[in-house]
């Protein structure tokens, strides 16, 4: 059944959870201010040997991977035409849009010259994997904003009431919205496809980033197919991320659990995660890196956790229809998948990164953790704000009637 209608939830904004989030975000903001006064070195443990740390591993790499719900659901619902799944597209899209926005915010904090972030648009280095990632992220962010526009238009079309503005202005904006609505509905397919193409490009290239450092990345992760692994894992994590986020949102906002959509959705995950698992294991067997598995180093342990708890266990769980139909167990399994992909990104960029000359250890400082946590909290706050005021989430059915 595909009858659905997205609407603003209009629920109470300041709950205790939201206050806690706001506190975390405020702490993060203080740390960000400290970073712009004292420099990156003042708040972080980054060094010559460890130039990338928590910010790149979590804010950027994991942020991009976990925003994969946006393009995977768009592919399913709009390109394959499975409109049954449309109710989850909007929240996934919002997650993706906010996710990428915060990726860029995280990048601004991490790069030394935040004010120079526009320079890749002028100075091109086609040899650089990062250049391709940056271009794709830039274009994709714009695509996401355009894809998000209909939700804003739908909310305000015919209802523009700017406080204190003359009628003429309101009417002008209104007709502008109507025009945008008309034009966008004609050309939206271009952006939907572009979103999928751009995602495939930079999701894989994010893995290709580390290919230039074969001596630094632990052999358990360093493989020529790293881009393919990043792409397949991003595709695989898309739907579990939708489940994760929908379950959290519907619980928190006391909405319909949408299990009738989420359960069939995760059938695809069994297949997609299976591909990723097969690639991972096959790569390990072919490159004979299983010899490292039991040497007890922190890298090996992190790899085992990533693979067993983050991929293998949830895959086995999702095989069972019982798990897919139980709200609780589905949430647990999907959380494990999300955690597994997150850990994979952290492993590739932080844990598995072992500079052979200096052999320095790295552990994120309080400042780094504060900024990362603050950004995530900020993202969640904005998510909640937007779903409260824009038609993103599905209305509970009884309210449709009411």
């Amino acid at each position, binding site marked *: 059944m*595909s009858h659905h209608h997205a609407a603003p939830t209009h629920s109470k904004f300041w709950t205790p959870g939201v206050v806690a989030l706001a506190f975390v975000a405020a702490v993060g903001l203080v740390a960000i201010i400290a970073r712009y006064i004292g*420099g990156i070195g003042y708040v972080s443990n980054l060094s010559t040997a460890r130039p990338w740390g928590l910010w790149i591993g979590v804010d950027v790499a994991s942020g991009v991977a976990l925003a994969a719900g946006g393009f995977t659901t768009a592919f399913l619902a709009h390109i394959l035409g499975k409109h049954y799944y449309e109710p989850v597209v909007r929240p996934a899209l919002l997650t993706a849009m906010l996710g990428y926005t915060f990726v860029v915010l995280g990048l601004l904090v991490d790069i030394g*010259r935040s004010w120079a972030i526009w320079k890749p648009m002028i100075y091109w*280095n*086609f040899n650089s994997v990062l250049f391709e990632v940056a271009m794709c992220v830039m274009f994709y962010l714009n695509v996401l904003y355009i894809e998000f526009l209909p939700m804003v238009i739908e909310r305000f079309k015919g209802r523009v009431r700017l406080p204190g503005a003359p009628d003429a202005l309101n009417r002008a904006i209104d007709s502008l919205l109507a025009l945008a609505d008309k034009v966008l509905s004609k050309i939206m397919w271009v952006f939907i496809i572009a979103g999928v193409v751009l995602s495939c*490009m930079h999701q894989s290239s994010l893995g290709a980033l580390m290919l*230039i450092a074969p001596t630094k990345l632990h052999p358990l992760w360093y493989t020529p197919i790293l881009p393919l692994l990043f792409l397949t894992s991003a595709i695989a994590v898309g739907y579990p991320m939708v489940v994760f986020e929908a379950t959290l949102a519907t619980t928190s906002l006391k909405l319909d659990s949408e299990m009738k959509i989420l359960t069939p959705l995760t059938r695809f995950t069994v297949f997609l995660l299976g591909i990723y698992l097969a690639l991972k294991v096959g790569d390990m067997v072919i490159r004979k890196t299983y010899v490292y598995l039991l040497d007890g180093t922190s890298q090996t342990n992190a790899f085992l956790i990533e693979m067993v708890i983050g991929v293998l266990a949830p895959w086995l769980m999702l095989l069972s229809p019982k798990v897919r139909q139980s709200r609780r167990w589905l949430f647990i399994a999907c959380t494990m998948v999300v955690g597994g992909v997150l850990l994979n990104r952290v492993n590739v960029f932080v844990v598995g990164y072992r500079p052979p000359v*200096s052999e320095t250890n790295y552990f994120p400082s309080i400042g780094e953790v504060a900024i990362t946590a603050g950004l995530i909290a900020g993202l969640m706050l904005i998510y909640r704000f937007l779903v409260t005021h824009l038609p993103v989430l599905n209305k509970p059915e009884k309210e449709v009637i009411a």
Partner: protein
Amino acid sequence: MGISRRNFFKILSVAGAATATARTPARAWESQAPSEAYGCIVDLTRCIGCRKCEQACNEVNKLPPPDRSFEDLTVLDRKRRPDEKTFTVVNRYYSGRIDERDQLIPTFVKLQCMHCQDPACASACIVGALSKQENGAVNYDVSKCIGCRYCMVACPFEIPAYEYHDPITPRVMKCTFCYERVANEGKLPGCAEICPVEAITFGRRDTLLKVARDRIKENPGRYVDHIYGEHEAGGTSWMYLSAQPFEKLGFVTLPDHPMPRLAETIQHSLYSYLWSPIVLFGMLSGIMWAFRGKGERQEDHEGGNL
């Protein structure tokens, strides 16, 4: 559903086959190394650990004054790395060899940017702020830099350092090969000029390789038969001769192929003329078009909106 999936894979495989036949195999990766590159040979059997190169480097590059005097040789008791205030450092190693008076014979190792022939940092740099110059120097253009530090991730020698404590305009700091002095003033790199024992020999890289091979040949027993940097990471402008195996002197063992080769090969074979995104776009449009009927059949579809 089953039919649609079969269709989907049919379209995919047809499109894939079409692109495979249309595309000639990706061009082989080619080195961009300059033919006339300058370089340096550091002869570790000559180095006496006087730290004059550090001093000259500091003065030539107008770096901040050091914490401890350049004449203080006790700093050699600790292993150091080049950092944002020091482009070159000398470290002392004891490989266990002793002289006739039972004194351990030290080996001094000067560290600085190796100025790779195909530098990973330059390949990685998002804006091309780092570039290999015709004269061999890997040059840094601060006006392009955005501070992403991917160069530092990419560098197999862990050389580029960063001004982490500058909040707004930090720079990547590394040996410049005295680019300005060599290219515009016709002078020698500061360290090569000052070295009292010519442990650093400056010249064209190909000439230097000949000199180095001759030194190994004409002084049997003095050197290990290995010029570090001849092949490491595809070859570097700075190269080393040593009496001890390089692994014992803190040198990292590296593959002989240039670091950027794999990533650039993948990158260029996928994205030259943006062929793969265009093909993917076309395929997805086709799929979307093929499935559009199904979409219309299902009700309550909000006019192409999301």
